[in-house]
């Protein structure tokens, strides 16, 4: 518990969002790099999960770490998510800074009690006396026919339950800076990376999954969204892979004289409510694009935030989400339920036509 910190973290403060520079990395490489940098600097950081060792993470989040830090600090676990996430919690309580991987967000159902009743509540129940500085990272999202149990986003599920920050980067730069902030955080952070933004060689990816990343360490503060593109006609509030789809659509529609602003939320908890309101105040039109299930989740919350501020900003509002149906396997069906560029484009055209 808090009396026994083993952290050797020498950090003072890291630069906040420096210029990206010219070096390009995939999101996966950016994550590996920052975890490696933190592990170098802080003995209390370690990595556990299924296939995070020699395999390097099914989605390459940990490639190379075991070679650098050895099997004492990068450990493959049995398929026992409850046990090893709980192990992370206990180690964090004793002052370590675990980075624990849950391979797919879809697997939360076998270990959610440790996550939401323990990791997320111990700090509160202890009246602030016990901290759980832990990162729980996991892959999310579909689009490659992995079926109903391996394609879900589910960030709304985590964000609904209090006590954990929920971070969802969309690109390599943010992934590196947000992971640094997550490891530094004294609170538990759920770090959800979409497979489609990792820049994997074996999966179709958006070109923005590879981008400029500074070599030095820096942080992107958790809770601050980013204006991924400025625009004046419509605000798209979105996150993760859908940011890229939205930017693609925005670029395309520029030719038609439609100016789209794209807000990349970067985290659900904390939610940057001010930025949402600010943008919609400017454009007067809101579209929420979310690869999670539509109802009882992020999209409703974003709309409610604006409604509570000023409902007159919502004369044009719509959602492009997964329509409350499990993710189907067949490509023809899956692409119908996902928030594809085609659906986003249609929503924007519809919005500006009103």
């Amino acid at each position: 518990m808090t009396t026994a910190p083993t952290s050797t973290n020498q950090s003072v403060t890291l630069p906040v969002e420096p210029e990206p520079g010219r070096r390009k990395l995939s999101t996966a490489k950016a994550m590996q790099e920052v975890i490696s940098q933190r592990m170098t600097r802080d003995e209390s950081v370690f990595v556990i999960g299924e296939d995070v060792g020699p395999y390097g993470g099914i989605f390459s989040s940990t490639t190379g770490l075991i070679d650098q830090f050895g099997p004492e600090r990068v450990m493959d676990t049995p398929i026992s998510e409850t046990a090893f996430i709980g192990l992370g919690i206990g180690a964090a309580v004793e002052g370590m800074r675990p980075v624990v991987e849950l391979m797919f967000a879809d697997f939360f159902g076998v270990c959610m009690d440790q996550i939401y009743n323990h990791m997320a509540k111990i700090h509160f129940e202890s009246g602030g006396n016990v901290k759980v500085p832990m990162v729980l990272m996991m892959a999310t999202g579909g689009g490659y026919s992995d079926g109903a149990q391996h394609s879900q986003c589910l960030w709304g599920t985590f964000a609904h339950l209090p006590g954990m920050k929920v971070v969802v980067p969309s690109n390599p730069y943010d992934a590196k800076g947000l992971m640094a902030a997550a490891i530094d955080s004294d609170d538990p952070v759920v770090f959800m990376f979409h497979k489609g933004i990792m820049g994997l060689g074996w999966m179709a990816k958006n070109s923005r999954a590879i981008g400029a990343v500074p070599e030095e360490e820096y942080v992107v503060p958790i809770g601050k969204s980013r204006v991924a593109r400025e625009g004046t006609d419509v605000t798209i509030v979105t996150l993760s892979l859908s940011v890229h789809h939205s930017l693609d659509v925005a670029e395309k529609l520029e030719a038609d004289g439609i100016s789209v602003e794209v807000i990349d939320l970067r985290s659900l908890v904390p939610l940057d409510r001010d930025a949402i309101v600010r943008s919609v105040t400017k454009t007067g039109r809101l579209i929420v694009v979310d690869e999670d299930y539509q109802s009882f989740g992020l999209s409703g919350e974003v709309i409610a935030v604006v409604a509570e501020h000023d409902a007159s900003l919502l004369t044009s509002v719509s959602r492009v989400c997964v329509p409350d149906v499990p993710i189907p396997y067949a490509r023809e069906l899956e692409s119908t339920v996902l928030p594809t560029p085609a659906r986003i484009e249609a929503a924007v055209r519809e919005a500006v036509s009103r």
Partner: protein
Amino acid sequence: MTLSTTPELTEETRRSLLNTMVLIRTYEEAIRREYYADKMPAFDIGAGLVPGEMHLSAGQEPVAAGICAHLTADDALTATHRPHHVAIAKGVALRPMTAEIFGREDGFGHGRGGHMHLFDPSNHFSCSGIIAEGLPPALGQAFAFKRQGNNRVAVAVTGEGAANQGAFHESLNLSALWKLPVIFVVEDNDWGISVPRSESTSVTSNAVRAAAYGMPGVRVENNSVEAVYAAGGEAVARARSGGGPTLIEVHTLRLWGHFEGDAEGYRPELKSVPDHDPIPRYRDELLQAGWLSTEQFQAMQDRAVEQVEDAIQFAKASPAPNPSEHLNYVFSEGVNS
């Protein structure tokens, strides 16, 4: 290496076991071919006629053949992310199964399920991609059978990696307590993706874990189809006669990668793996003993190829699901949310 053959097996049973294994292998090879056909040269998991993850069972045929030889279509079986071998051995029809793997309208799930979600109600066959979570539903099927007062059984198949999951423990305890007609089959192929058994499991045999539930446990070594057959026969008979559950662990072999596309950098002995292929081994044994002729084997293979290619043709000819029906099947009456 010789197999411990079971003296009382008839030649016919032996050929039938081999035949099942050959059919499975033929199927997996064909799926593999189709899977890669339109993903090369740059492998893209989401591309091609068969997209998504693909977990094939080559090398594990003895488990499927040996266990399912004792089952009828009325018995239930729940499988894992690696389901084809047990599906085929259980008698699941290749055409709708293959159409589902191709994501077509004539598939078992009209393309909603895919390779990890094959449901054949007429065979009481199902599978799930979540580790060890296929076990609990098998308990319920066994429970229903018991309540019906017939002698049907349920088989729950899982990997050795899965035996460290909480659902495994809970399922074994509850089934033993309620004396449910279940057979738990653990396929120990030494690996859970890249994690060797020694780094996942604190004991060398899951069969010893049966004692933690007061149920019989047996480990079958050497990937021997006849030894699986023997152990399966005993366990199924026990379950049918009200004797409750049994745990069977089979030391088997994952001949290929965890999923297709797996470079297997973590498996140093990879090169020697094919030497342990159970099919040529068993074939040679039967040939040598005079229980099988080369002609018979050739016929088996031909028939397998015919069946498998027919299924693949069927799948390819089946239409894609209609995108306008993307909201169907959430609830039985059609409302969604």
